[in-house]
C-alpha cells in the first residue's frame, strides 16, 4: 500500500484540480480523481474530509464556488475562480518585505500572529528577492493585544455582525451583558477600545477590551446593520482623537522631577512671564522654571501630583487646579480613611 498522501499535498491537488477544471467537478469526481481523497475509508470520512478542506481553503482566501447544473437537478459541482482569489498587482521591494516581516512579530496574541504570518507568506510570493535589511528583530515592539476579544471583533466589524459580551462598566462597576453593533477597533496608549452602537441604549458607546469579561460572541447574520453615518462615527471617535499639544510652565526643585525635565522644551513665545510676577517670588526663590509639553490636563496633573512638593504648576490654571484638587483630597486621607477599621 502506498504511503498516505499528506493533507497539504491533498489540498494542493484539490486547488489545482478546481482551478483547471473546464466547468466544474462534482464531489464524486473529486473523490475518484483528485489524489489524496482515495485514502478516505468510507463515504462519511470522505464527506468530512472534503467539507473540512473547503473550509480550510475559504479561510485561506481561496473560495470554492458551488455550481449547479440546470440539466441535472440537485447535482452540485465545484470550481475555484482564480481571478476571484487573486491579489491585486502589488510589488514589494526587499526592504518593504523586511519591514513587513518585522511587523509580523508585533502581536503577542496567538490569533493575530497567525493572521499576520499568513499575510506575510502571501506577500513574500510577490516580494523581491531577499537582501540583508537594516531593520532587524529586537527593534520591533511587541504589543500585548487586548486578549482573545480582538479576533472575533475584527471579524464582526468586517462582516457588520452584532456582538454580545459581558462588560464591567468603569464608572459604576456594574457587570452586564451588552449587545453592540461594532464599528471600529482602536489601539491607543492606555488600551484597546471598541467603538459601536449599544443596542439597548440605542446610542454610540466606547468599550475597553480590558473590561470585557469572558468571550465575545457573534450573534445573528452578517450585514445586520448599516455602517454608521460619517458624522455619528466621527463624534463617537472624537474622545479618542489626539489633542493639540500645549506647554505647561512648572516651578521645580533643583535635581528633582528628572523624567519631566527630560522632555522640557524652551519657553514658548506665549509663556507667562513668571519671573516678573511678584506673587510668585516666594515660590520661585529656590526653584527652576521648566516648560513641559502635554496634551491632556488630567494626564499631566496625575503625573505631576506624584512629585509632591518638588513640582509647582504655574500655568495653565486648568492643570494647576486639577493638581490642587488631588492634593486637597489627599491631604485629608488620614481623616477620611480608617485603615481597614482596625487602627484608624
Amino acid at each position, binding site marked *: 500500500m502506498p504511503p498516505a498522501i499528506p493533507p497539504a499535498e491533498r489540498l494542493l491537488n484539490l486547488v489545482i484540480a478546481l482551478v483547471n477544471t473546464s466547468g466544474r467537478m462534482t464531489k464524486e469526481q473529486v473523490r475518484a480523481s483528485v489524489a489524496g481523497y482515495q485514502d478516505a475509508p468510507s463515504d462519511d470520512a470522505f464527506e468530512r474530509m472534503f467539507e473540512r478542506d473547503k473550509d480550510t481553503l475559504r479561510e485561506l482566501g481561496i473560495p470554492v464556488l458551488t455550481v449547479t447544473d440546470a440539466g441535472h437537478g440537485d447535482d452540485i459541482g465545484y470550481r475555484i475562480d482564480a481571478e476571484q482569489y487573486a491579489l491585486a498587482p502589488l510589488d514589494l521591494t526587499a526592504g518593504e518585505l523586511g519591514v513587513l516581516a518585522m511587523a509580523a512579530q508585533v502581536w503577542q496574541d496567538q490569533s493575530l500572529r497567525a493572521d499576520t504570518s499568513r499575510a506575510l*507568506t502571501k506577500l513574500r510570493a510577490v516580494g523581491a528577492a531577499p537582501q540583508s535589511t537594516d531593520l532587524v528583530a*529586537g527593534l520591533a515592539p511587541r504589543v500585548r493585544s487586548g486578549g482573545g476579544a480582538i479576533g472575533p471583533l475584527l*471579524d464582526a466589524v468586517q462582516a457588520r455582525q452584532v456582538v454580545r459580551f459581558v462588560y464591567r462598566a468603569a464608572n459604576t462597576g456594574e457587570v452586564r451583558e451588552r449587545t453592540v453593533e461594532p464599528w471600529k477597533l482602536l489601539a491607543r496608549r492606555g488600551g484597546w477600545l471598541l467603538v459601536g452602537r449599544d443596542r439597548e441604549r440605542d446610542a454610540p458607546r466606547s468599550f475597553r477590551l480590558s473590561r470585557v469579561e469572558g468571550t465575545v460572541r457573534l450573534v445573528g447574520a452578517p450585514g445586520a446593520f448599516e455602517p454608521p453615518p460619517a458624522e455619528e462615527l466621527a463624534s463617537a471617535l472624537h474622545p479618542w482623537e489626539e489633542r493639540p499639544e500645549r506647554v505647561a510652565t512648572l516651578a521645580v526643585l533643583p535635581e528633582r522631577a528628572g523624567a519631566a525635565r527630560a522632555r522640557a522644551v524652551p519657553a514658548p513665545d506665549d509663556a507667562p512671564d513668571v519671573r516678573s510676577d511678584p506673587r510668585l517670588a516666594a515660590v520661585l526663590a529656590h526653584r527652576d522654571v521648566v516648560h513641559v509639553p502635554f496634551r491632556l490636563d488630567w494626564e499631566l496633573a*496625575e503625573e505631576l501630583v506624584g512629585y509632591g512638593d518638588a513640582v509647582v504648576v504655574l500655568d495653565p490654571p486648568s492643570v494647576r487646579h486639577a493638581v490642587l484638587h488631588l492634593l486637597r*483630597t489627599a491631604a485629608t*486621607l488620614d481623616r477620611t480613611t480608617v485603615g481597614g477599621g482596625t487602627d484608624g
Partner: protein
Amino acid sequence: MAERASDRLLRMLGMITYLDRHAGVPVEEIAEQFGVTADQVLSDIDTLWVTGTPGYFPHDLIDFDAASYEQGVVRLTESRGMTRPLRLGAREAVALLAALRALDSSLRPALDAEQSAVLSSALDKLTTAAGDAAAALDVRLGLDAAPEVATAVATALRNGRRLHLRYVDASDVTTERDVDPLRLVTDDERSYLLAWCRLVDGERLFRVDRILAAQVLDAPVADHTVAPDAAEFQPGPDGELVTLHLRSSARWVAESTPVEAVRNLDDGSFEVDLRVLRPAWLRHLVLQVADEVLDVRPARVATEVAAAARAALAAYGPLADEEG
C-alpha cells in the same frame, strides 16, 4: 509542534508564484524568502513536483528543471496555471496593517530617512491592498522616548552595541549604568527597553520615557540568557503588603499596575493588594487616585500621603488660595 497543513499549503502556493516571477533561484534563497529551512524547501519542492491536475501523468504535473535542481537551483517549468498570487483575507490584511501602524507610531522617531521612506511605502502599499478593511482598526501607540534616546536605542539594538544610560526611576532617583539592550517591549500603556543591566547583573525593564540620556558604546553586547517572561512585570514576594480600596472609576489601577490580588465588591468598588518596594512609588499612585480612595491599609500609608499632600499645598503658597 508540527506545521499546520494550511500554512504549508499557503507557502507552497506562494513558491509557485515566486518561482514563476524569478527564473532559477537557489534553494537557500527560497528558504530565506519564506523564512523556513532549506530542508523544508526541498520537501516542499518534492511535494509540488508530484501534484497537478487529475490523471497525474507527467504533462499534468507541476514541473521543475531537474538538471538545475541537481545543482541546488530551482527553476519552474510548468505551473499548471497556479501563478496568481493569493488575495489577502480581510483579517490578515488588517492584522498586518495594524502591526505596521504600531511599528510606525512607536518606531518612527528611531528611524533614519531611508528606513523611514521604506516604512512609508510599505504602509502605503499595504493600505491599498487592504482596501476597505483598513478602516476597521485604528492604531496609535506612541513610543514615548525623546528622539535622541530613541535613535540611540535603535542603533544599539541594530548593531548589537552596549548602551550607557542615565535613568530616573519611579522614586525620582537618577542613576547611570551600562546595559546590553535586548529588545523594545510596548504594552497598552508604555514602551520599555528590556536590557541586561550590568549594574545589577540581571535583566531589567526600563521605561523609555524615563531614560534621560542614552549613549551608544563601542563595546558589543555580551550573550545573556533571558527568562522567557522577562518582559512581564512580576510582583515579587518582597516588599510591604498594601491594600487599596478604590471606587470603580479607578479600575485602571487593577489593569495597569502589577497587583497581587483584586477583589471586586458588590457595590462596584474593589480592593487591590500591592507589594510595595518603593514608598515613593506608592505615594505617587495614591496621590493620583486620591479622589477614588475609599480606604488604605495599613493606615500609616494614608498618614504619609496626607503629609506629602499638605507639604505640596504649602509649596503652592498664595497660588493654592487663588480659587475657593
